[in-house]
């Protein structure tokens, strides 16, 4: 398999196209709707502080989403669950997800295989899990709870390795394979994150994909950040590189039909710099790459 090929070859498998939307920009939403099948929602970014520490979903944004529910499907992608924290996950995330699922229908929901807090203290960044038996047992138990609670497909995403990997009992792919085997959960494969890991740490993408059970991959992410001091940063501020799209195509081919959607991720802070036209061009490019 030509992982990371520089050429965007025609995909042999057709998948849907999605984009992130964090609300409060109806013109952007209107521009994207004809170009996407899925809108990916992050509960935390459409939440507001309602005095004190109480956090609730924005009524304004939820109204926007309800208004377009006949034109597009929704998927949920959280950032604040912290499923990997040794002491337990974030209860606030559950409140927001409950509130969201009460109001709109979603196809599936997902989070990051990572932790963002330790003993209630926030890291300010996501750290990848140690690939140990202890971590695997803990994650699997929590995935089962999530699936039992929501009765929806649940996916976990590979995150960027900000720091070197800790010694573990599993390779990255073997950890994901065992997690999906034990729980039945699905995977999001973030192609840009893999490229960041290859660039920053010499991660072997070809070896990883060769070992991974790609029939568990339901969703792919493409994005692009900036390079700082020789490091590729996991920020979503640019259009995806051709190499990232080509890598996602490779995974779609190998997933044997399990991959359903490729989502272009960008943060709202990047929208003024990118502009609506550039975002629309990116989505059209993904349509060409993945719908044939």
């Amino acid at each position, binding site marked *: 398999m030509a992982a990371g090929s520089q050429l965007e070859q025609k995909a042999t498998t057709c998948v849907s196209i999605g984009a992130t939307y964090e609300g409060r920009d109806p013109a952007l939403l209107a521009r994207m709707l004809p170009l996407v099948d899925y809108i990916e929602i992050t509960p*935390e*970014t459409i*939440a*507001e*502080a*309602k*005095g004190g*520490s109480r*956090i609730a979903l924005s009524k304004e944004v939820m109204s926007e989403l309800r208004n377009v529910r006949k034109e597009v499907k929704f998927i949920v992608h959280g*950032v*604040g669950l*912290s499923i990997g*924290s*040794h*002491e337990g996950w974030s209860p*606030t995330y559950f409140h927001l997800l409950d509130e969201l699922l009460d109001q709109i229908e979603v196809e599936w929901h997902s989070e990051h295989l990572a*932790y*963002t*807090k*330790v*003993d*209630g*203290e*926030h*890291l*300010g*960044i996501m*750290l990848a899990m*140690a690939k*140990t038996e*202890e*971590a695997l047992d*803990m994650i699997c138990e929590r995935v089962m709870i999530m699936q039992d609670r929501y009765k929806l497909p649940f996916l976990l995403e590979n995150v960027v390795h*900000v*720091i*070197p990997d*800790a*010694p573990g009992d599993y390779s990255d792919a073997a950890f994901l394979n065992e997690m999906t085997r034990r729980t039945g959960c699905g995977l999001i494969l973030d192609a840009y994150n893999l490229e960041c890991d290859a660039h*920053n*740490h010499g991660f072997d993408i070809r070896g990883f994909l060769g070992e991974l059970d790609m029939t568990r991959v339901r969703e792919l992410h493409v994005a692009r950040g900036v390079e*700082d*001091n020789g*490091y590729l*940063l*996991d*920020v979503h*501020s640019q259009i995806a590189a051709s190499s990232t799209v080509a890598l996602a195509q490779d995974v779609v081919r190998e997933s044997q039909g399990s991959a359903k959607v490729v989502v272009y991720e960008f*943060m*709202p*802070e990047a929208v003024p710099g990118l502009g609506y036209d550039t975002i629309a061009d990116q989505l059209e490019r993904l349509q060409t790459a993945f719908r044939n």
Partner: protein
Amino acid sequence: MDLATQQRKLLGLFRSTYEVAADDDAYIRKVARSGDLAEGKKNIALWRVWVFERTCALTVSLLRRRNILESLIKDFITSENISPFRETQAPAFLEWLTKSDDDLVASVAKFELALIRVRQGDRHTYTIAWNFEPSSILHCLAKDLAVESELTPGHYQVVVSHKIPGHFRIYELR
């Protein structure tokens, strides 16, 4: 090393509250001396800058003009337990800045914090003291222009309330 110990030590490294000992685990020592840790910390600050540029633009403009934005964000990250919920980050940052020794920074932060709250439906009325004429300063910050030439000393109050059209009004105290 068990998961809890490893996560606690990594948290300490990221928050600069943990000093690696000579007999520490080899992995923790490796992370502590890696460029990845320093880059990760920069990444945390970069995310905050982007969020604050969008969510508290007036204050960010002032801090950037004074070349203190990055250092203050670094201090804020180190001293505060910042929620991952993005919309809570600007209010927390502004609340932290209201205690600044710099009168103008404190006034702008108090003003922007009050404005955010009122725009989100807060029914309180906020009164903020200013030691400089506020209108030209706020105009410059909104346009991201230099403010130093606009600092005219005086005694003013800015009242922020949902009852006021545009949500705020400036009063000169004589």
